[in-house]
């Protein structure tokens, strides 16, 4: 089975690692892109070329290399803005990763409590009686920053539940999101279930009560066409390493007027306008949120990743993964004792499949798949422990697909699972 618009064999040739041999002569079957994706040669080459020939610090060096480096860094911002449909390039903040982007936004709340000099914007004022809403399917990076925030401010953290088939439970939407809610922050696509969440329904309710909405789009931006303006939310976080880019670079997109109203996150070089001994004023966005020397080469590499994805076409990436997911859902159904954790249908779901095998611990599954077949999956709670507690299981095995995966690799996974069951029979 091949996609009409994506030539997977040609794409695989762009990823050097996919043709390497693992110790013992095994071929690599990489089904762990939800964890971190592999990198195509153009990204590797862009990073190498920048480091070798154009490297200098950005935004301050008055020489050729500084200018070239700044140009490359800022043009990566342009590429990212265009890639996610940001109305303005200045709304794209480079962070270390999605976690930092989420922490940055959480940090903006409650400044009146620690005596910020500017009058705090009431949308970010947070204290006892105020509420923040997240969901049971969140990655720890969209849980812990909010837990820390409610500890600092005395606000309350509320949760959407998850249904048995792995969907966001919105049956009590109006009871959970109330006029006390200041922000709702949920995953766009679950990193365990694969579920794509109904943003519009949540957004509608949040707008009714005047709450802000943030999306953790770490698992959606790499795999689907995402347009932040069309989504209509306030903040979107995602990370470079899951979308063919280097690690160490992430993105926060936020609506400009909100970013302007927020206090700075980290203080340091480049984020200031002027510094006196008794106070400082801050640079306009995006630089207000980019203290210190940023991950320059990483941003440039992410720009190249975006170029690559746009060359393939995000519609084609999405269609290819959809075919793989349909194929895998059918194939996994044939494995006895396999329990899928997440939607069994293709509707509103991406290419992330988590499951348990009866009587066999995921660590044993992952170990044997790797040792004997070179199949890389992720095992454990995937940084979503509350979700696993919800399903009454300590851990799952997760296969996650990307544009370079094939139905042959799904077949290899199924053969591997049958072998695992033989070992523990």
């Amino acid at each position, binding site marked *: 089975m091949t996609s009409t618009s994506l030539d997977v064999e040609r794409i695989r040739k762009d990823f050097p690692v996919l043709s390497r041999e693992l110790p*013992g002569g095994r071929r690599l079957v990489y089904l762990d892109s939800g964890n971190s994706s592999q990198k195509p040669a153009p990204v590797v080459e862009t990073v190498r070329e920048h480091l070798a020939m154009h490297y200098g610090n950005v935004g301050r060096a008055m020489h050729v290399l500084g200018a070239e480096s700044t140009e490359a860094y800022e043009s990566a911002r342009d590429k990212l803005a265009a890639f996610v449909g940001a109305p303005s390039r200045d709304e794209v903040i480079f962070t270390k990763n999605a976690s930092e982007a989420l922490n940055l936004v959480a940090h903006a709340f409650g400044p009146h409590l620690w005596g910020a000099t500017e009058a705090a914007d009431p949308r970010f004022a947070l204290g006892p009686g105020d509420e923040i809403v997240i969901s049971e399917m969140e990655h720890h990076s969209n849980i812990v920053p909010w837990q820390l925030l409610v500890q600092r401010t005395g606000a309350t953290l509320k949760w959407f539940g998850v249904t048995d088939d792995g969907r966001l439970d919105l049956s009590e939407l109006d009871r959970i999101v109330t006029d006390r809610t200041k922000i709702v922050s949920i995953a766009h696509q679950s990193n365990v279930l694969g579920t794509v969440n109904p943003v519009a329904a949540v957004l509608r309710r949040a707008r009714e009560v005047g709450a802000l909405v943030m999306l953790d789009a770490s698992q959606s931006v790499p795999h689907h066409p995402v347009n932040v303006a069309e989504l209509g939310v306030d903040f979107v976080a995602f990370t470079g390493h899951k979308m063919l880019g280097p690690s160490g670079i992430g993105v926060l997109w936020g609506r400009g007027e909100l970013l302007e109203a927020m206090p700075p996150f980290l203080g340091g070089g480049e984020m200031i306008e002027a510094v006196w001994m008794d106070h400082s004023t801050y640079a306009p966005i995006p630089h207000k949120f980019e203290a210190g020397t940023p991950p320059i080469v990483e941003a440039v590499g992410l720009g190249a990743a975006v170029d690559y994805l746009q060359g393939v076409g995000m519609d084609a990436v999405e269609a290819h993964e959809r075919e793989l997911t349909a194929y895998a859902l059918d194939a996994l159904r044939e494995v006895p004792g396999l329990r899928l954790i997440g939607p069994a249908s293709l509707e509103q779901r991406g290419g992330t499949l988590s499951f348990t095998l009866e009587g066999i*611990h995921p*660590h*044993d599954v992952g170990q044997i798949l*790797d*040792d004997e077949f070179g199949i890389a999956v992720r095992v*454990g709670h995937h940084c979503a422990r509350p979700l696993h507690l919800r399903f009454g299981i300590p851990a799952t095995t997760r296969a996650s697909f990307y544009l370079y995966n094939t139905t042959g690799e799904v077949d290899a996974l199924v053969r591997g699972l049958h072998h695992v069951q033989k070992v*523990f029979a």
Partner: protein
Amino acid sequence: MIGESMYQELILEHYKHPQGRGLREPYDAEVHHVNPTCGDEITLRVRVGDAGKIEDVSYDGQGCSISQAAASVLHELATGSTVEETLSVVDEFTRLMQGRGQVEADEEVLGDAVAFAGVAKFPARVKCALLSWMAYKDAVVRSASR
């Protein structure tokens, strides 16, 4: 292949048919240990009789084959030996597990536990093998301080 050196028949046998599993009375100390990276956990009790002889090691928990089999082997090795003897086995087992596969196992001291030698090559799994053994060491120390 690499995997087969880790999943020794003896380990699989203990995993499928764990020895001494289940919490029993009487006991002198009970401990609960977890491995936060994978969620494996064990509750373990020891009963120490006259002359420092281990009369029973009982346990319950959940986890992968390595952690469960290690608890089963521990039960067999420890029960009936003296505290002192068992602690030297624990030390040797720990030395083997933390040896990155470079340490020659002393089969005379370790008995069946030597089957875990292959695990030492997998840093991510060493904690699985050590979970129950560390819990045991902790329980013995606590029983002595009673």
